[in-house]
């Protein structure tokens, strides 16, 4: 409600009304450019007593109209605000002492521009004792604009705050939390109201809570930035690590107005760091406990060598004092290397660098305490951008190993010499045996031939002159000579088996069996023998030798079934074993162990002829094929011989 005008006599009259000393300051207020001072007499009829001249500039209307119509000011109010303002003013005017009038509204000036006005009024008692209404209408357009801008800025900051991934918070200067961003609420799942003040501390992991509380309190007390790591409990009960940072916001005077802060989720980072640390610890532990010196050697682009990792073990390996290693490490280490090995080492390191190939060398060093040691070095070069080369690798003291190796080598050499000597002895023995059997085969038979031959001559030329007994004796002499000849032949065949070399190949077993039966055809002459041959898989064997096995087994079967009217010989394959079964004389199994020995027989010669070598030959051939032979028999129930062949030759 604004009024008054300059040059109005009554307004002037108002001014002098106060004590002379007060006039000037009051006028200054009344005529301040952004304020309109107004004075109204409410009764007996509402009348404007004074209105500041600034009314015209703010309202864009002449103040004179106000004196005519005290409500003229209302017409300038923005239509949207007008009724509301009028109602508020009317309400106040009815009981101005009891009520207040304080309102903001817009004024539309005739040129269409708008101004914001803050208007307020009070009831006062004039010098004459009458009730007067007075007030100030202030042009607050600029302030409103500033406030709008501020609100806009606040909205902008809030949006920005709430779009951050961090949890954002703010507290009063005393540390009492009064803002927690929606992210905070969403993360904790606890309503913000429960967390204001110190309530948020309940979301901190119990183990971290005391330290966080202390850090926060001391930051608040000292007014210094706050930074602390803590675990915050998520809505689902999972604790995650956060980094909280806060800063005080100070007024120009220096006093703290507010604290602002963020809490950043560093859980993944922290886990990764922890894993990295564990890796480092593991590696350090491995490097530390390894008998080798695990190290990293660097050669800079300009040729300076340094040990980047594992220097301590590296130096210890060489017996170099750590103090000596400063500067170019290579010099200190090279001084320890055996002069004979040094050129080879430099050359090979250089080649490894040039070609990027792994470096592996054994060389000697002269250790000040341990003497000459052998070092085995393994490393892999990595070229770095900028021209440096880094070798990651190990150094191992292999002196003991080399000594052990050389002991083993000399033992081996000794052993080989011994084996060679034994082999030579054995060869001599074998040669002697061969010479022996050669001479047996020639020389032992010659006298037998003479015995047999001349007995024959005597019988032929002088037979009629001899008594019958004499003739019978001569025949016995001949039989014996021939038997001895057979013995010698069988024995030689048996001894030859051990020396003969074995040539194994897959052989049709059925064919071997048929060939053997063909050879033995004379034994079946004049007899009825039921020979049954089952399915026989091929054999991996020396065919000449295996043929002998079949011949011996089948001839036994034919021989011992000789007295059977229905002789039956069965050949077959069962599991890994071939077998020959007959229904012949058989024998008692308690003698089975003797069966395969040379010259061992279970039947008398006048029952079944034989030298007792056949089964020994079978066993030896089968054993040379890595196999085994066995027998099942019973007296008068026949016998069954089983044999299987093995993979490789066994010496025996």
């Amino acid at each position, binding site marked *: 409600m604004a009024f008054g005008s300059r040059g109005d006599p009554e307004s002037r009259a108002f001014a002098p009304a106060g004590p002379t000393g007060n006039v000037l300051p009051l006028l200054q207020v009344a005529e301040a450019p952004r304020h309109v001072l107004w004075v109204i007499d409410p009764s007996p009829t509402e009348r404007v007593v004074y209105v500041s001249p600034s009314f015209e500039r703010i309202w864009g209307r002449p103040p004179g109209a106000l004196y005519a119509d005290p409500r003229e000011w209302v017409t300038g109010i923005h239509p949207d605000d007008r009724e509301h303002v009028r109602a508020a003013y009317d309400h106040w005017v009815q009981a101005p002492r009891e009520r207040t009038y304080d309102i903001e509204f817009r004024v539309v000036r005739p040129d269409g521009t708008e101004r914001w006005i803050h208007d307020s009024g009070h009831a006062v008692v004039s010098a004459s004792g009458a009730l007067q209404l007075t007030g100030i209408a202030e042009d607050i357009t600029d302030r409103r604009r500033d406030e709008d801008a501020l609100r806009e800025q606040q909205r902008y900051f809030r949006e920005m705050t709430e779009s951050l991934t961090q949890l954002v918070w703010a507290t009063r200067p005393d540390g009492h939390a009064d803002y927690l961003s929606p992210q905070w609420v969403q993360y904790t799942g606890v309503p913000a109201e429960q967390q204001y003040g110190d309530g948020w501390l309940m979301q901190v992991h119990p183990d971290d809570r005391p330290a966080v509380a202390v850090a926060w309190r001391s930051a608040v007390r000292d007014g210094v930035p706050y930074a602390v790591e803590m675990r915050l409990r998520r809505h689902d009960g999972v604790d995650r690590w956060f980094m909280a940072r806060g800063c005080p916001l100070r007024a120009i005077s220096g006093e703290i107005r507010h604290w602002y802060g963020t809490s950043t989720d560093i859980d993944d980072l922290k886990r990764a760091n922890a894993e990295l640390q564990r890796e480092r610890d593991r590696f350090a532990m491995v490097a530390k406990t390894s008998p080798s010196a695990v190290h990293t050697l660097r050669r800079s682009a300009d040729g300076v060598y340094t040990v980047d990792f594992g220097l301590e073990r590296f130096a210890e390996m060489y017996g170099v004092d750590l103090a000596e290693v400063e500067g170019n490490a290579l010099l200190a280490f090279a001084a320890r290397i055996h002069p004979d090995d040094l050129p080879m080492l430099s050359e090979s390191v250089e080649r490894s660098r040039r070609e990027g190939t792994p470096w592996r060398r054994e060389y000697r060093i002269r250790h000040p305490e341990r003497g000459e040691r052998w070092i085995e070095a393994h490393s892999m070069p990595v070229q770095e951008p900028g021209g440096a080369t880094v070798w990651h690798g190990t150094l191992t003291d292999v002196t003991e190993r080399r000594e052990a190796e050389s002991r083993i080598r000399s033992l081996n050499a000794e052993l080989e010499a011994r084996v060679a000597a034994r082999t030579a002895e054995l060869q001599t023995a074998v040669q002697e045996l061969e010479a022996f059997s050669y001479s047996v*085969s*020639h020389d032992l*038979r*010659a006298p037998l*031939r*003479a015995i047999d*031959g001349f007995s024959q*001559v005597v019988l032929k030329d002088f037979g009629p002159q001899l008594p019958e007994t004499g003739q019978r004796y001569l025949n016995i002499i001949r039989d014996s000579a021939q038997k001895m*000849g057979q013995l010698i032949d069988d024995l*030689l065949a048996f001894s030859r088996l051990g020396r003969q070399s074995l040539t194994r190949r897959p052989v049709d077993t059925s064919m071997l069996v048929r060939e053997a039966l063909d050879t033995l055809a004379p034994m079946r002459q004049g007899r009825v023998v039921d020979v049954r041959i089952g399915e026989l898989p091929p054999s991996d064997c020396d065919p000449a030798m295996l043929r002998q096995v079949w011949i011996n087994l089948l001839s036994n079967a034919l021989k011992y079934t000789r007295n059977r009217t229905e002789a039956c010989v069965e050949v077959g394959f069962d599991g890994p074993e071939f077998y020959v079964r007959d229904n012949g004389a058989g024998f008692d199994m308690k003698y089975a162990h003797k069966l395969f020995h040379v010259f061992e027989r279970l039947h008398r010669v006048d029952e079944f002829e034989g030298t007792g070598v056949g089964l020994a030959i079978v066993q030896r051939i089968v054993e040379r094929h890595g196999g085994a032979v066995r027998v099942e028999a019973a007296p008068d129930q026949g016998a069954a011989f089983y044999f299987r062949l093995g993979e490789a030759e066994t010496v025996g």
Partner: protein
Amino acid sequence: MNNVEILVVEDNPCDLEMTLRGLNTARLANHVHVARDGEEALEFIFCEGRYAERRIEMAPKVVLLDLKLPKIDGLEVLARMKGDPRTQAIPVVMLTSSQEQVDLVRSYALGVNSYIVKPVNFESFVKAVQDLGFYWLLLNQPPAAAG
């Protein structure tokens, strides 16, 4: 001495007598000459030493050669005969007590024409000698490519 048809090289008197008896029975004994060791056999065949007056052209029709002989053994005699163009066509029958594979193999490698293992049984032996004697003697002209 020059019309010898069978040369028997044998050191064992028993075996020799058996052999001669066998040849005799077969009526082949007329032109048999006996050498008692390898050295004598070679002198006879090559007309050297005590047989220097012999003419090499009058070669025996067949040689029955024992394998084991004093001084020079049968295999060497065989080697020398088969290694000389003048004598390599003479048929050689190796007689041996041995069934050693190695002897057999070497004899055939050296070009032996036949190989008999002397059995203990005298009759078989005589039979073998007779058969061989006949076989080679009946072929008037020894086969040039024999061996």
